[in-house]
């Protein structure tokens, strides 16, 4: 058993006193900063990165990984408690997680999120250890056109998330794709839709847009219709724990979410983000009560949270085996490695096995620490809910403002955020759901790149989309999904028309 030997190297590295301490410290600080509303994992990592740079490379990366998991968990906690997703992957957590919190099941939601994430993290770590080489070979099988089709599937699944009309969700996706094209066109160097604003050359910051639409949009909506207030809830010890029923209902979603997240996380280009969307869509589709999703279904929380964590874990694979960062947070990790003089890529595993395996084992240890750290603290996090909204919303605005400002140290992102806050307010009033918009905005630039490459390789023949088996399968899947989503509304509309 080769990988047992490799893992033992990893354990030897991780279990040293120094590394263990920094791993714990990373998890703790990551959770503390990540839990501040408005600060997602990327912002948290960016803020805390400088602290780790003084450490020795392995220790520093282990601490950074700890911060990453801590920030992710902290981010989920705020998503559930105050309906503010700090990162795109927790956009889905909000849907049912926050509704559970409103029903007084906040403790149960946090416990299930923690346990689901731990299960997913454990499994994904094993997969990385056993399958890193094979998985990167599988990812190499994907051509540009296959990636493009994969993202089409991802976008269609995000439409499944929207509770309202399918058409509006599709429009929101396209709108997101359009906003994603703003900035310098990489291939030609032409400035697209920048209107002479130099800050727009790099495109619109996804984080600023997300904070505006979700954070500010939500604040405005809550102030406009304060009816459904987040009244202080009685938090007895019992209400902190999931009921047996909730446990039972979470088991399968956790397993499915873990599997999906593990697979999708490996694919460079937003795989980890897709995984939580996909896991939610799957649960909704196979559920006997899809109409209850969005009202606090425990399945709708357990699956995406597990997928999210599994994906976060396996998204290290493309970084460690191909040198490809798959999301902004992993890109920060890559940046830290470069500063430490480590070139992320296939050579790390051979040249620095201690670092590679130490990092992998520390992922698991970090996840374990998170559970131990957070389960007792859940009661404390819930107290956040009993803070009256009157005091909470100025605090959230403060954190949003500082968080966005620190991203690039300029006021421009703050202005972007407030513009998107207004857009979010208008769209909410028109019953358009913002989650598909964000996914479109993230995937847009990547999709365009892959589409161009695919067309260049095929000599401008669009048939290549259905000639490659992987791509054809994915597109067929997207088509089937779309039909499934459209069917109920078509049927309903026919009834409506007949009634007239």
């Amino acid at each position: 058993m080769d990988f047992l030997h490799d893992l033992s190297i990893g354990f030897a590295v991780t279990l040293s006193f120094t590394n263990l301490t920094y791993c714990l410290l990373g998890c703790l600080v990551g959770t503390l900063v990540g839990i501040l509303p408005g600060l997602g994992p990327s912002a948290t990592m960016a803020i805390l990165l400088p602290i780790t740079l003084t450490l020795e490379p392995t220790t520093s990366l282990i601490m950074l990984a700890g911060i990453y998991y801590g920030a992710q968990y902290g981010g989920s906690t705020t998503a559930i408690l105050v309906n503010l997703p700090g990162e795109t992957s927790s956009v889905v957590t909000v849907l049912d997680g926050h509704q559970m919190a409103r029903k007084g099941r906040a403790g149960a939601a946090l416990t299930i999120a923690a346990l689901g994430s731990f299960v997913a993290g454990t499994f994904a770590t094993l997969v990385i250890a056993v399958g890193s080489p094979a998985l990167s070979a599988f990812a190499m099988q994907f051509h540009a056109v296959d990636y493009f089709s994969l993202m089409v599937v991802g976008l269609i699944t995000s439409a499944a998330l929207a509770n309202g009309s399918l058409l509006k969700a599709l429009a929101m996706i396209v709108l997101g794709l359009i906003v994603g094209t703003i900035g310098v066109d990489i291939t030609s160097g032409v400035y697209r839709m920048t209107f002479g604003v130099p800050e727009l050359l790099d495109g619109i910051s996804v984080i600023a847009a997300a904070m505006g639409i979700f954070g500010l949009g939500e604040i405005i909506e809550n102030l406009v219709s304060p009816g459904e207030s987040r009244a202080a809830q009685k938090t007895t010890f019992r209400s902190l724990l999931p009921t047996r029923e909730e446990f039972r209902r979470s088991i399968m979603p956790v397993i499915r979410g873990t599997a999906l997240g593990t697979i999708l996380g490996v694919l460079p280009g937003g795989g980890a983000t897709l995984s939580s969307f996909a896991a939610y869509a799957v649960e909704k589709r196979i559920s006997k009560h899809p109409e209850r999703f969005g009202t606090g279904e425990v399945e709708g929380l357990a699956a995406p949270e597990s997928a999210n964590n599994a994906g976060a874990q396996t998204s290290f694979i493309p970084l460690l085996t191909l040198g490809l960062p798959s999301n902004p947070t992993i890109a920060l990790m890559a940046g830290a490695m470069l500063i430490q003089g480590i070139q992320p890529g296939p050579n790390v595993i051979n040249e620095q096995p201690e670092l590679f395996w130490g990092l992998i084992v520390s992922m698991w240890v970090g996840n374990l620490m998170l559970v131990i750290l957070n389960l007792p603290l859940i009661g404390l996090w819930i107290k956040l809910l009993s803070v009256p909204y009157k005091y909470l919303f100025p605090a959230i605005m403060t954190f949003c403002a500082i968080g966005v400002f620190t991203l690039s140290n300029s006021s421009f992102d703050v202005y972007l955020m407030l513009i998107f806050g207004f857009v979010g307010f208008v769209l909410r009033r028109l019953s358009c759901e913002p989650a598909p918009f964000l996914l479109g905005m993230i995937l847009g630039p990547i999709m365009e790149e892959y589409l161009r490459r695919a067309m260049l390789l095929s000599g401008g023949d669009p048939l290549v989309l259905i000639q490659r088996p992987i791509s054809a399968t994915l597109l067929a899947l997207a088509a089937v999904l779309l039909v499934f989503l459209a069917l109920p509304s078509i049927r309903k509309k026919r009834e409506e028309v007949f009634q007239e």
Partner: protein
Amino acid sequence: MQRKIKKPHDLWAGVLFLAVGVAVAWYNSYYSLGTLRRMGPGFLPVLLGILLSGIALLIILRGLVGQVEKMKPFTYESLRIAFTVLMGMLAFGLLIRPAGLIVAILVMVLLCTSAMRGYGWRAACLTAAVLAVGSALVFVVLLGQPIPLFGKLLG
């Protein structure tokens, strides 16, 4: 039978999407479209603009048929709240460089608390002070973020 607008929110959303779609397609058509093999910078945006316009037309059509659904209205009060909150954020952006973090947060919080009716001024001042000092401590002192506490204006 008189055709009335059944779903005003669908209609308005559709009109909005249509306007954006047409504008995007038109604006980007000035960039080179290129060929399918070598796509120019305008290719995808124009395509997406047309796609959005198409979907928007369907949404508008659907707003005209079917059962009547009520829309969450844009009342004067809702607009007042939206603008007050956003003005607070704008003030933060404008003040953070010249006046520093403390002043920016004080002004932002005081502005945005006025969005909520019945927020007494004493509570507002207290909240603003606590948030300004607290975030200065956490972000600048503890986390060492390079944010000016007091800007040039204040010496």
